[in-house]
């Protein structure tokens, strides 16, 4: 004997034999999702939906706590542990060996360590799942918003339909389909991946068109003033140069510069006109 004495009611496991059966201590997936009662006070469900950071904060605290516990459990007693941490006087004789350490300590430490690791892993997975739930909640919220807009839109369109055709200035044939509409083919629900086009919104369109419309007059004035200034300088330079008239065939060549003038003048007025007409304004941004 090496000084190890057994207890009559609970024989100690022999060191170096088969490892203990820990399966009953490793939590299953159902149990792992239950939040331990020792966690900080839970926020209400409404708070969690509104403030997912609260739940994330809780998870972080629990994980830190478990990591600390795991570290503590892994720390084995040193050679002089018995001197600094004597065996309690009421220690059961059958559970202690001659050196003063418990025969169950290693086993318990191992089991606890496995359990803590498992719990830690399960909690991390729970955190990931919570993130998915949060995204799903956001999606539901967005879709409910869209559905609300959609139903309001359908109601208003129905009201327009009910107006007698003669009372509307809008041609009904253009507004509402006469024959039965085409049914879209069966779709496999799979949200497309937004890339660059994800940013092409009405808000950006309105900002772009609105900006150009806002500077329309300024643009027109600057064009006229700058054009007049440049032309004046060019004409002045030509006059001051006092050059002799070149031969006729050469002198006519610059007439080619006049060809696009009508095109540019029409373009200038066309652009101004269409910006003034409000044809491009888009209201009712969803």
């Amino acid at each position, binding site marked *: 004997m090496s000084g190890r004495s057994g207890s009559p009611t609970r024989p100690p496991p022999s060191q170096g034999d088969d490892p203990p059966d820990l399966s009953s201590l490793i939590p299953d997936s159902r149990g792992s999702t239950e939040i331990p009662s020792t966690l900080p006070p839970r926020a209400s469900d409404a708070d969690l939906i509104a403030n997912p950071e609260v739940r994330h904060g809780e998870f972080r605290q629990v994980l830190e706590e478990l990591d600390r516990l795991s570290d503590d459990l892994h720390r084995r007693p040193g050679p002089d542990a018995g001197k600094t941490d004597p065996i309690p006087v009421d220690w059961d004789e059958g559970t202690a060996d001659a050196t003063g350490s418990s025969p169950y300590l290693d086993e318990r430490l191992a089991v606890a360590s496995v359990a803590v690791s498992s719990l830690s892993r399960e909690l991390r997975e729970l955190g990931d799942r919570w993130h998915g739930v949060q995204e799903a909640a956001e999606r539901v919220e967005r879709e409910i918003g*869209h*559905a609300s*807009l*959609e139903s309001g*839109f359908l109601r208003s*369109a*129905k009201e327009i339909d009910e107006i007698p055709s003669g009372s509307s200035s*809008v041609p009904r044939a*253009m*507004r*509402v*389909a*006469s024959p039965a*509409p*085409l049914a*879209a*083919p069966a779709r*496999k629900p*799979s949200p497309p991946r937004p*890339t*660059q*086009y994800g*940013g*092409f*919104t*009405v808000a*950006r*369109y309105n900002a772009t068109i609105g900006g*150009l419309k806002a500077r329309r007059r300024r*643009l027109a004035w600057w*064009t006229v003033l*700058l*054009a007049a*200034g*440049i032309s004046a300088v*060019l*004409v002045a330079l030509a006059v001051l*140069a006092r*050059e002799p008239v*070149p031969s006729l065939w*050469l002198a006519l*060549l*610059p*007439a080619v*510069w*006049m*060809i*696009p*003038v*009508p*095109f*540019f003048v*029409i373009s*200038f007025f*066309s*652009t101004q006109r269409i910006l003034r007409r409000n*044809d491009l304004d*888009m209201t*009712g941004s*969803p």
Partner: protein
Amino acid sequence: MNFPTVLFQITAIGKNVRALEASARSVLYWVRHTPALAFRHRLWLVVEPEGYRTAPNVYEELRAQGAEVFVVPREYSTPLGTSGKARALQFAVEQRQALGISDTSAWVYHQDEETCVGQDTLLGISDFIQDGRGLVGAGIILYPLDWLGSPSHIQELTRSYDDFRVLDSMTMPDNPTMGFHGSHILVRADVEDSVGWDSVGYAPAEDLTFEIRVRARYGPVFGVLKGFAYEKGAFSLRDQVRQRRRWVHGVMWALRRSPELNARRRATLLYSLFTWFSALPSVIVLLASVAFHYGPLLEVTGIFTGFIWVSMVTGYLEGFRLHSEYVQRTISLSRFVLHGMVGALVDVVAPWYALATRPSLGDFIPKDRPVLADEIGGRHVPG
């Protein structure tokens, strides 16, 4: 309640698979994320067999998500025997007729393979149909996708600003400055299918031919489509010049082979072409003026020079401002000016290049930006 159907139709060879996939997905994404749309939607991808073969998995994936893929049979031919994009467009017309959807309740929104839509595009389409603004609508196209600030990309900025001129002209009775698009246009299905896209031989600018026919048959039924479409410019100067060459050939084709073109519109078209052709001689004469001293004549021409210069610079600046909400990449002023000049020179040379070469059916303009392996990640690599 009955809503009309908008058929988002992407007609292309189909080899620019990533661009096409993004365009299709932009439709699916924004239809899903835009409430209060007054239409039902369908997504049609009309591609050539060689395009489909490039990445069948991509097409099948899109099909699984709601797109309807039509591969134009190699043996298919139109009554007049047209080729190129017009052939595929005519094939789609016949498909609609066979399905019985060429009526007033269906609209066709035309996209190129790189035409992405946004929330504004869809609401603009919905608004156009509800308001009964016309039978054909066209809007402004921006070019922010994969924008790099290269000379060809800088040059595209001016096209967006020029679209204001295009839209104004298009809505006037005779379209005095010949404005129209081949993409970002909405056409009521019965109108499109009655006019069709068929022509004798290859029509390099099928959109121009279509506009001429619709106007001749239905009159001024064109309206402004609110909302932008989002495309990408050519990646290289070579592609830019080939694209412009096709336009020039298209205008020349329309001048020669469009019996629907009345004398006034023919003159307008001719003037537009002449204006473009005059750009290269203008530059040459400008350089020559230093040597030949055109002093006295400059006293007359100089009056208009300022206006033309300012108008051109305004096109670049306002074009850039239109894109500023969408383009993340910044570019220094010096590079902007330099690239703008290079891009403009390509446009100056393009019509003369077109004159010296023949229309080519095989002009394939790459729109798929080369991507690095880490950008692709775990995704498929087309081809």
